[in-house]
């Protein structure tokens, strides 16, 4: 899957959980927790949703690696299929 498409999907799932985030201006490198008030329960819900949607296995031990949108895309890109 190309990165643009992946990005759209991640943002879609993110805004279903946290519609307060203005995804048009989202800074890819910012920590979602600090800048966009995503707490650990939100993060858990987001990763669960992405796992379902993309059929990508995301072991919970990897959760901490995904602090920003860029981290998420870097992690998912090589793992997400067509």
């Amino acid at each position: 899957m190309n990165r643009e498409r992946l990005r759209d999907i991640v943002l879609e799932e993110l805004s279903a959980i946290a519609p307060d985030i203005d995804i048009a201006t989202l800074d890819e490198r910012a920590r979602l927790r600090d800048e966009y008030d995503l707490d650990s329960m939100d993060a858990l819900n987001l990763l669960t949703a992405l796992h379902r949607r993309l059929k990508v296995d995301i072991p919970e031990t990897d959760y901490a690696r995904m602090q920003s949108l860029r981290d998420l895309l870097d992690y998912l890109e090589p793992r997400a299929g067509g």
Partner: protein
Amino acid sequence: MRSPGPQGPAGEAPPPALTDHDAVRATFSWRQAREQLAGLPGGRLNIAHEALDRHLGTPTAERIAMRFLPRQGEPVDISYRALAERANRFANLLAALGVKPGDRVYGIAHRTPDLYAAALGTLKHGGVFTPLFSAFGPEPIRSRVEIGEPVVLVTTERLYRRKIADWIGETPSAQRVLLIGEVAEAPPGTLDAGQAMSEQSPDYATRPMAPEDPALLHFTSGTTGRPKGAIHVHEAVVAHHVTGRYALDLQPRDIYWCTADPGWVTGTSYGIIAPLTNGVTMVVDEEEFDAERWYRILEQERVTVWYTAPTAIRMLMKLGPALARRHDLSALRFLASVGEPLNPEAVHWGRATLGRPFHDNWWQTETGGIMIANVAGMPIKPGSMGRPVPGIEAAVARRTDDGIELVKDPAETGELALKTPWPSMFRGYLHEEARYRKCFVGDWYLTGDLARRDEDGYFWFIGRADDVIKSSGHLIGPFEVESVLMEHPAVAEAGVIGVPDEVAGETVKAFVSLKPGHAPDEALRREILGLARKRLGPAVAPRQVEFRERLPRTRSGKIMRRLLRARELGLPEGDTSTLEGGRE
């Protein structure tokens, strides 16, 4: 890997502080407990004096009070002497700003050393410190500022810009905003506290306070109305100190980690005060929950006593034992949990995976300190909150027409009641005398929690007697959430309940009905959810919003949350005789 920890090798585990619970209970008195503290001349005292100053003439002065773990980079060790000096600088800054004893100082910041210095410095100066959770949105912060009218707000530049700057000019209180942590550019009307503190003297004579002088104001939530500010006094330190020793088994060479944020009562009573009065080293982590990091901290810092919460324990359990087994957790001696009932599997999991069982304990904002606990010297009953700590008498009560009746039958559920007084008991709800008085019947404080007591004297939590939601150990008042939902122009009525969640205990779910002319579609759902999150912050906002044609109401017009919940969870609907229009 760094090992041993800051105090050298743990060596032989010391015997528990409380070896014979029954014997200590039989002879315990609060008066004697107070003699364990230093006090100040004339029967006065100050929490900060017990936490810091009294150690200064002793070898504890050079011991590490706080090992601060920044998000990235090397740990920062702060000795008791250094922390006292930092708190003194803050107290001097308050004095320079004209802050008077009794004035309230609010702290809204994530965990950094200066938040602790601000709390302790406020107490030294005789001010009243109020911690607020930094994940609160602007609305919960604003309502608590309007109720408590602080003269000073301590926060960070980022939080100020995002959650406070927009409205602070509209309230007459909080004239001074002090920014801790890195300040790039102090916005107008704020002061870079770090810089201002460095210009102050590190000496300050801690103000001797009367035992009944207010020291802390902690906000909590009820079913109805605005948040309640529970007032605690300097005398409370007697309970903080002895319960730290008895219920958490704190001993002088301990390395202690309380994972609760100082934005809540646990993070203050047992995240600042009790560890310092007991002279231990506290680990303070700037980062939020992260399983791998947490295991690393337990291992590298050689944590001996760990006080955490069921939500975190359940998250660790989900990850399985392999991650834990990769770490050397042999320094752990005592594990405790608070916030909501800890399921028996978690107690067993602790024993099997971490090498020690979790000791659940129970208390609430109003009690100021641990009241009921599985302590070190007695058998744990997994799933139970334990037995009352020395100095505390607890009972199960049934409300009657003219008061209460104590329940003797171990099978019967009633309201958990505590015999008054004890030092850390709240002395009032700020500006709400009637609401305070309603909590007491005769000599008993009624907690609002339903419980039963078994034949061995162990208490078991059954549920809340009201509609308050308990999520990740925090109380959330449905009214506060509903009020924000009602601000959306499409919303006609809103009802908010807690739904069970395997990690958080409960999460917040909102039901809303719409005004005519609005369609219940996904776009509107997101708009309402977004508004709630923006205003309330993720810790308080609903995780789910669902539309309903209409919500069940009583004939007097109140939303029947109990019925919403029963229907959502498929529980018996109970008494619906007051339902508007009769049974549906």
